[in-house]
Every structure is written in C-alpha cells, then in structure tokens.
C-alpha cells in the first residue's frame, strides 16, 4: 500500500491506547524534564519511555534511529568531556586526551534527554496510524480541513510519485533514452517536473469540487464511522498525564 506511515500492525498494550493519550504522553515526556530541569527527572522519563518502547514491541524499529543519533551523541560526549567550561575533575584519560567528569555528566544529561524524546515519539508513531491520530484530533475539535490536509498529504504524495513514473514511461515510449548514465537520467527527469505539477494542480481543482459535493464544507455536526475502540482507562490516563504536567509546573513555581 502506498501510504506514508511508519505504523506497524500489532496488538501490544500501546496499540490499544488511544492516539490522544499517546500524543499527550509525548508532550509531557518532552515538557516535564524541561520544566523540572534535573538529571533525575530526565532519567526517570528516559526509563519510562524506554520501557514503553519495549512494551510497544518497537525496539527493533527504534534501534536504527537510536544508533543514528548515537553518532551525534558520541561527538557531544567527546567535546563536552574534553572542553566543557566547568570541567574540573579528570575522569579518565585516553592517550593524550583527558576526559572530565563534569563534561561527561553534562553530555550524558543531553543524551538521556534526546533518547527520551526519540523513544517517546517512537512509541507514538510506531503504534498509531496517522489517520487515527488525525481523526482523534478532529474529534477533539481540530478543524476537519486541517485534518484533511494532513491525512491526504500522506496518500497524495505517493500518488504524485507514481505520476512521475507514468510520465517517465511516456517519455521512454517516445524515444527519450532514460536508461543508462546519470546525465541521461537527469536530462529525462527535469522536464518531468512541470507536467507532474500541472497534472496534480488540475487534479487538485477537480478533487476540490468532488470534496465540496461530498459535503466537506457542510456546517452540520460531523459524525464518525470509526468509534473509539480504545482502552476505557484512557480518560484516567489522560487525567493522570495532565496532572503530572500541572504538578511539575506548580513544583517549578514553588521551588523557584
């Protein structure tokens, strides 16, 4: 199926939780460690989101992202370990390089925060169909038009790619040599952009009419085919998540 999505079918606990709750979790997992800016808090959320990745059985799919960002993190470790401004206590030496405890700790803090965000987002995107998330947001009051833009883009971009394939075929069919060297292929590809764009503009106009006659701009209260088949505890979860956020804000204000 041509659809831009990282969602993977599954029946883990997290697949059963509604998209809004998961989205809330992502927001909180990002915000709370910023509001209460301590290493303990960052570590706590890192542990939670990592656990959730395992619960979602999404570890294998998250690993490539983690490994990729690890490259960056390692650089940070190096730089901060060597040159962090508050560096005082040497921790270990590697050849001519002296690594300091303060810098390493600081860099570890950054690493934990980044991994926390990656894991939290991974839990959401690997266990939620984008269309479900969008529909859930529309149900919560997000404009259906904005919802439509997001959900159609996920499908229509792959469609545009296939228009490009078709036009490429048409050019080959009319004697344009597109097999072979890079220049040949580039030469074939550039004149393609115009017709592909024109083609999709025309489709857009026609599609706008088709949407209109399907009541897209109707002022009636929208109903939904898909019911919320999710966990009945989601309200409790959502309240708890919001409470955590509120608490952390209060905590921050009190301990100013």
């Amino acid at each position, binding site marked *: 199926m041509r659809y831009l999505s990282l969602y993977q079918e599954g029946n883990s606990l997290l697949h059963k939780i509604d998209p809004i709750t998961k989205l809330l979790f992502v927001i909180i997992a990002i915000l709370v460690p910023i509001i209460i800016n301590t290493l303990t808090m960052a570590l706590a959320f890192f542990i939670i989101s990592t656990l959730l990745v395992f619960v979602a059985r999404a570890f294998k799919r998250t690993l490539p992202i983690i490994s990729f960002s690890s490259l960056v993190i390692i650089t940070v470790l190096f730089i901060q370990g060597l040159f962090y401004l508050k560096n005082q206590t040497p921790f270990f030496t590697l050849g001519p390089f002296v690594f300091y405890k303060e810098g390493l700790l600081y860099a570890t803090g950054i690493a934990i925060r980044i991994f926390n965000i990656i894991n939290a987002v991974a839990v959401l995107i690997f266990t939620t169909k984008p269309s479900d998330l969008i529909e859930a947001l529309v149900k919560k009051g997000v404009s259906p038009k904005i919802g439509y833009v997001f959900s159609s883009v996920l499908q229509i971009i792959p469609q545009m790619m296939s228009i490009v394939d078709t*036009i490429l075929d*048409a050019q*080959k*069919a*009319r004697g*344009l*040599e597109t097999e072979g060297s890079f220049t040949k292929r580039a030469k074939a590809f550039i004149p393609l952009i*115009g*017709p592909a764009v024109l083609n999709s503009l*025309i489709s857009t106009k026609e599609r706008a009419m088709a949407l209109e006659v399907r009541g897209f701009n109707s002022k009636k209260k929208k109903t939904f085919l898909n019911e919320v088949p999710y966990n009945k505890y989601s309200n409790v979860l959502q309240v708890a998540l919001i409470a955590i956020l509120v608490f952390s804000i209060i905590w921050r204000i009190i301990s100013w």
Partner: protein
Amino acid sequence: MDEVIRVQNLSFAYKQDYEVLKNISLVFDKKSTAIIGQNGAGKTTFVKLLKGLLKPTSGEIYIKGYNTKEVSTAFLSKYIGLVFQNPNDQIFKNTVLEEVMFGPLNILKDKKQAQENAIKALEMVGLQDKMHIHPYDLGLSDRKLVSIASIVSMDPDIIILDEPTIAQDHKGNTIIKNVIKELKEKGKLVITITHDMDFVAEIFERTIVLNEGIILLDGNTREVFSQQEILKKAYLELPHVAQLAKKLGIKQTLLTEQELINFLKHNKLNN
C-alpha cells in the same frame, strides 16, 4: 506471412505468484487487431510488454526481430508506438506542436523533418488549427487526439491504441476511425484495446479475446463474434447489430448495419 511481432510463451507477474499473463504465444502480421476483454483481463499489461515498458517475467517478445529484453524502450520506439489510455499521462510540452514534435525529435534528431512529420500528424487528426495552443487548454477528447498525433508523427511500423474512443463523441470517433484506416493503408500494424464492440466489428480484421491472462479466442473478427458461448464466459457483449441478428434468429454472424439491412432485404425471417 509478414511477421511483425512474435510473442513466445510470455508470462508476466507484477507480484510474485500472481501472474497477470500466462504463457501467451502469438504472432502479429499486418492485420489490424482489436484486443478485447473484461477490466482486469491483462490487456494494458500486454501492450506495455509489447512496447517494452515492462519486461516479460518469462518468455520472449520480438518486435521486428528485436528482443524487448535486449534493447531499450527508447530504441524500440522507432518501431512501435503506444498511445496511453489517459492522455494526461503523456502530455508534457507547452504547445500542441511541441508536444507532437517531441517523439520525432528524439528519434530523427532533425528539427525540420520532425516539424514536418508533426504537422502531417496533426492534420490527420484535424488539429492543425490548434497547433500553438497549450494542450491543457483543449478538452479531454482533443487532448486524446493530440496524444494519438504525437505517436503517429514518429511514424513507427506498429501503433497501439489503448481505449482510443473514451470520451469521444461521434465526430471524434469518426476521426479516430479514419486515422486507423489511413494507417492501415500505409501498411502499419494497428493494435487497439477497446470496450466498444461496434468499433471492433466495423474496423478490425482480427480480434483477440483476453480473459484472466490467457487468450480465449483469436481470429478473424467475424469468427470471434460467432463464438457466442465463449464470449459470454468472458463477460463480453456482441456488437449491437449481432445482438439484433441473433435475436431475429439469423444464423449468420452479421456485424454491420449494412449487412443486416441487406440480409433483411433479401431474406425472410424464420420466426
């Protein structure tokens, strides 16, 4: 026999284990040929294979002696042209003339000659007055005629039309019929995919019925339309005249109005 295309044990699958075409073997000479069959029978896939846009999963296709697996699609375009079903899929220039010149420019590399060919092709489809218009300012039916002209202008020996009569009114249909007749006279092989049985009966000498990836019938158009039981199995209709003749209890397979009129003028009905 004047062999133009040879298809040998051709099979094709887009996805593994799901063959769209199954072990097809046939030869095309210069007889104009209609390919008919239900939606999904594999007709478009088959012509894309002939054109070299797809390569056989197994088996061989020879176009004027060239194996489609061994030469590029662009090379083959000198010999075989395909008019796509949706003209929007093959239009990418800013004027009708440039559009029709695109093909001949690619193969001839001579601008003057290419322009001459393009103008001739546009005259053939009756669009010589609209040469400098943007193709998208034309209606869908005229755009289809542009796409036909842009293949005719390349002067290949084989021309394939995929559903040429969609969205055409009577005038457009007549133009297309005349183009096919003219190409036939020039000794070209014209192959057409269509759902319009009256069009098949009127124009094409040979008819091939594809059904679920195999050739169900292949022969002289009249013979094919006399195999009513088999056609029914492929969910195909008879041409309107043949339907009427059958209902009137006429044993012969009559295909055109004139044939039926003549029959009625000279014979009594048996019921």
